[in-house]
């Protein structure tokens, strides 16, 4: 099948090798006989909620993030409608922040976000930088770990009752204190983890693909045939060990 992916602001938000995530989704889809049809969504482009099975937004430097923030906030309703209708979404780092209610700068300024995720981000004095390891359940009862690298000054504070992506085993996570990392709303996942995220976390890549396929078909989520993930498993193990050895901590 042809999975329709909307890649938000690829020219602006691409700092942590976001194209690596797209490459992983493309190849893992192809190995199952599916095609990934990736369309860039730029400044001023209209986002039609039903037009995409998966939305992707990466991270950028502060300057680039500030350039896209007003446009993204204006797309907030459409993004919310897409996710409510069952589209999958992955937001990494800056994109994760911008999809919250907003960002409070150190000077007190307020930059409104797209309000998909129930959180606010507050600029911190120091950056939280290092390897991270999470434990989480993408599906209830199936425990897994996610390994990556984080580099952010913002502290993301989840609302009471919000669902985090996972619990931090090593590293800082959302705010360096709560012990949680990322946020989930329906089939949308937001996280600070890059590295890029998906090459060393193939189970998350496959989860996103199967959710996207479910949106496309309108049917239930079907498991994808397994792949030989020996290299991915090795890279995951090295990255996880890095986090245990030298990840930032609470």
């Amino acid at each position, binding site marked *: 099948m042809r999975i329709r992916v909307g890649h938000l602001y690829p020219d602006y938000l691409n700092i942590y090798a976001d194209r690596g995530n797209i*490459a992983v989704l493309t190849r893992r889809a192809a190995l199952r006989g599916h095609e990934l049809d990736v369309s860039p969504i730029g400044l001023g482009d209209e986002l039609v909620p039903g037009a995409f099975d998966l939305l992707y937004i990466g991270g950028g430097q502060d300057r680039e993030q500030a350039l896209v923030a007003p446009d993204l906030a204006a797309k907030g309703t459409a993004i919310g409608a897409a996710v409510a209708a069952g589209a999958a979404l992955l937001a990494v780092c800056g994109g994760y922040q911008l999809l919250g209610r907003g960002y409070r700068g150190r000077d007190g300024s307020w930059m409104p976000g797209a309000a998909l995720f129930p959180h606010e981000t507050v600029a911190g004095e120091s950056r939280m930088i290092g390897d991270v390891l999470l434990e989480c359940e993408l599906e209830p009862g199936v425990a897994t770990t996610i390994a990556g690298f984080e580099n952010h000054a913002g502290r993301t504070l989840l609302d009471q009752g919000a669902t985090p992506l996972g619990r931090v085993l090593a590293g800082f996570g959302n705010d360096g204190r709560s012990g949680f990392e990322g946020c989930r709303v329906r089939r949308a996942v937001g996280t600070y983890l890059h590295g890029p995220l998906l090459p060393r976390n193939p189970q998350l890549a496959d989860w996103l693909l199967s959710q996207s396929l479910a949106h496309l078909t309108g049917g239930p989520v079907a498991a994808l045939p397994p792949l030989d993930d020996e290299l991915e498993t090795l890279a995951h193990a090295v990255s996880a060990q890095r986090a245990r050895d030298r990840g930032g901590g609470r």
Partner: protein
Amino acid sequence: MQVVPNGPVDGVGARVDRRTPGTLDRMGARLELETRAASLVARLSRAAGKGGGTTLPGKLIWKVDPGAVDALAARLAHGVVIVSATNGKTTTSAMAARVLESAHRLAWNHSGANLASGVASTLLSSGGAELGLLEVDEFALPEIARRVRPRVVSLGNLFRDQLDRYGELEHIAERWRAAVAGLPQETILVVNADDPLVGALADGRTGAVRFGVDDARLARPALQHAADSKYCVRCGAPYAYAAAYVGHLGDYRCRACGHGRPPLDVAARSIELRGLEGSSFDLVTPAGSRRVRLPLPGLYNVYNALAAASVSIALETPLDDVAAGLEGFSAAFGRFERIEAGDRRILMLLIKNPAGANEAVRTLEEGGLPPTLVVALNDAIADGRDVSWIWDVDFEPLLAGAQRIVASGDRAAELALRFTYAGFPAGRLEIVPELEAALDRGLELVAPGGELVVLPTYTAMLRLRAIAAGRGLVQPYWRGRST
């Protein structure tokens, strides 16, 4: 040092200017003591087998008496040159050294120790030098510039690099703006006008030298994936490029506000790239033009040569000497280095960030794609702990030409993923994390008389050179400059 002598000390005041009483006198004596202590530390460090001991004495003096650096710099009669950039600062300063060494006795940190401690070490161990030639880390630039009060500052480029260590580009640019604002009036600022962020640093500064490439035939068809400063430094609208040469370096203009590349004072025109052998170009300067045959490949080395030439011209070096120095230059260690290994050769090209690695790939493309490669990815602090940058490198042309690739280093598996997700067949990829074993495996895969191309990150490069030195193939890097 806490042992500050109050009066003259036997044998240590020799170089102190006797006409200057008081503090300077004591400072001179103290400097002498510190210099001696530092050289002892360096010898101890080498004796203990800790590499070249290139920065330990400097670390010491930086810790106990950072003000000594000001005084050490002030003893240099011809002043101090600072060279900084994300990419090419080691090569640029090595080129400048080749040009300048005939007219000046140099205090030059040729081993690439470019943090405050390395600079302090160089100044400490350079008694009798006339001109300081300091390659300086981009993050360390503000403090070092403040202390040494440079005569010339050359700023080459800003690319995304080790975000875990340096932070965002704009953050470095902000530090550079402050550093430039604090420079003495008489300091000559040399900037790469082809880099929008860097070129803008010279806005309104009298006497600045702006260099760039002026040869649209060599432009890339489009900005590379990893291009950084794509948006106008004044208004934020995207730049239109009449020509994009290396990453975001090129001839740019903002359609919204008109901000564009300023006129060039020093330019390279009629450039001819000759594969791995080098390049030729017209070096066009206010003092005239010369055809230069550069023995280093790649357009990025033309940029390095322009920076070195601009620095030399700012120091009033005759144009013939500039051209001769550039032509007589050989590569800085590990950047582009051929090492004989028995009946085979190793060609080593350092990769450390997307822009630099893209140029290494482009250079190899121009020289004919190598069939056998060792690529080594480490993630120590000096390499960048965050390895995501390898996904921003356009490795694809290399993969198209390679028969076999050995992925090595501490993050070999991540590198292997980068190549397999780009479609490189797993059956032709070997994972050998240990560097020495990977080097041997690579050499084994090359037929006698053939060449093994090795692309290491910084600490992998140091280790591979140490292995080569252990086998008697190259000199250790702290023994003068390598060739």
